[in-house]
């Protein structure tokens, strides 16, 4: 996807976040700045504890920043809203609602006309490939299917920016690969903007237009690398491996510095 006809959708400026645990202060984020253009697929990568989830949660509006600002389409973000949809690693589906009802939750809450809700919900059930399970409850689904419901739920709610926090982290390799493919397919068809947290270099290179590398102590944005490989990407190709080696070296140099 080219960024030519697009604009800056999300602007994160000098974001800082301090947690106070008892007597101790943890600087989870320091001076993090990031601009995301409409339609971009961004992967956030970095060692655990470097503030990836914190950054995502501030953008989602679940946490407030200690300093700095987040604006979406130029408007400051204050609290959670339907324009930003979060896909959690542990799904967070409503267990008392069926697949169809979970997907309908957002449109219903926003009070859209009944007919419109129905159209939307039915079409997104198909988009995420859950037609046969539309009336099943979450506990009857596999992990991969649950994550599809979670994706369908934010898509049906017209989220413009989809935030995904290690969404495929708990899934087996095969399911993960399929979901990556499907996610890319959906992204290309629906012109979404995605920020995707992962700790797999391979996953980041498979998915991203840009890989943003974060580092810990204090949590900060360290590198911002554009992945120029053509799509669809082939994990076995030589150029893919070259990029993987390069990014791996970056991540490991942090690790070496941190643990030295």
């Amino acid at each position, binding site marked *: 996807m080219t960024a030519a006809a697009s604009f800056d959708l999300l602007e994160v400026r000098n974001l800082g976040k301090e947690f106070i645990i008892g007597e101790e202060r943890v600087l989870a984020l320091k001076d993090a700045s990031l601009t995301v253009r409409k339609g971009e697929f961004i992967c956030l990568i970095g060692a655990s504890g470097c503030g990836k989830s914190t950054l995502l949660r501030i953008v989602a509006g*679940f946490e407030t920043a200690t300093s700095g600002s987040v604006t979406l389409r130029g408007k400051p973000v204050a609290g959670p809203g339907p324009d930003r*949809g*979060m896909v959690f690693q542990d799904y*967070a589906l*409503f267990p*008392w609602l069926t697949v169809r009802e979970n997907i309908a939750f*957002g449109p219903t*809450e926003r009070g859209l006309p009944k007919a419109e809700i129905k159209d939307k919900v039915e079409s997104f059930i198909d988009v995420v490939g859950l037609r046969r399970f539309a009336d099943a409850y979450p506990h009857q689904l596999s992990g991969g299917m649950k994550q599809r419901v979670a994706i369908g739920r*934010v898509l049906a709610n017209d989220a413009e920016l989809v935030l995904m926090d290690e969404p495929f982290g708990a899934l087996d390799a095969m399911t993960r690969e399929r979901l990556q493919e499907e996610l890319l397919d959906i992204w290309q068809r629906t012109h979404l903007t995605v920020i995707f947290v992962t700790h797999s270099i391979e996953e980041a290179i498979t998915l991203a237009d840009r890989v943003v590398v974060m580092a810990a102590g204090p949590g900060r944005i360290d590198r911002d690398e554009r992945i120029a490989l053509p799509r669809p990407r082939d994990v076995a190709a030589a150029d893919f491996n070259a990029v993987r080696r390069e990014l791996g070296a970056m991540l490991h140099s942090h690790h070496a510095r941190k643990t030295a």
Partner: protein
Amino acid sequence: MTARDQTVADLPAAPPAAATAGRPGLLRARRLALRAQPVLLALVVPALLFAFWQFATANRWTRLIPTPYEVAEYMWDFAFGGIYDDAFSATLHVHLLASMSRVYGGFILAAAAAIPLGLMIGRIAVVRQLLDPFFQLLRPIPVTAWLPLSMIFFGLGPKSAFSLVFLGAFYPILLNTVFGVRSVDPRLFEAASMLGCSGSAMFRKVVLPAALPSIFTGLRLGLGLAWFVIVVGEMTGVPQGLGAAIMDGRTLSRTELVICGMIVIGVAGFLSDKAVQALGRRLLRWSPQHQ
């Protein structure tokens, strides 16, 4: 893996044809035995107790307790009359209905008060700080201790009985509702708020359904306790009711009447619980713990 945690994705395969072919009779017998087993097992202890009772009274270990046969005969008279024709003949339905109206009335009032209160105590910090210590303080006081005060407030009669049943059922429902709300996965609130849900809609759409399994546990315990306290509740000078009948039996030294009252309360409480459980299973179809 039990049948209940099967996912839709791996529905059971058809049983191998060879195993079932040619022996349908045997299979049906085995299936019947499987279904009868829990019922039979549940009857073992009551049957033993019954046998012991029969044995002990037949051998005159005590003369104060009537034999099972006497009690059965009395139960018949209590229900349908025609044997003794005394003041209690054919009055079972009157007492049962009177007690049921108090048990269910008090229980429904308790649920109507405890569920909204519990939702608010669980979810709103100010309400919790305001009310939680107060309820914790009142909770250890047994219903029996409230009897005199209740009679002062509500006078002799059914109102007092109502209020005592209410007290008995209130705390388990309240505590379980609070517990249910407190243990909702906070991610669900985040998910709902990002989907555009807020304010009172959060109560209806997330807090209530998420706490429902726990609320149902509270309702079961509460209804059980409502039956449990009915005898105390009917010590308030009501003329009718199973508790009143038991207290009359005690004053008149009619032990068979006391035992009949106990049996009816036990069975009525048991059936009430089954009804609540069935309702719970319907409303909680989505929960793997309630299949």
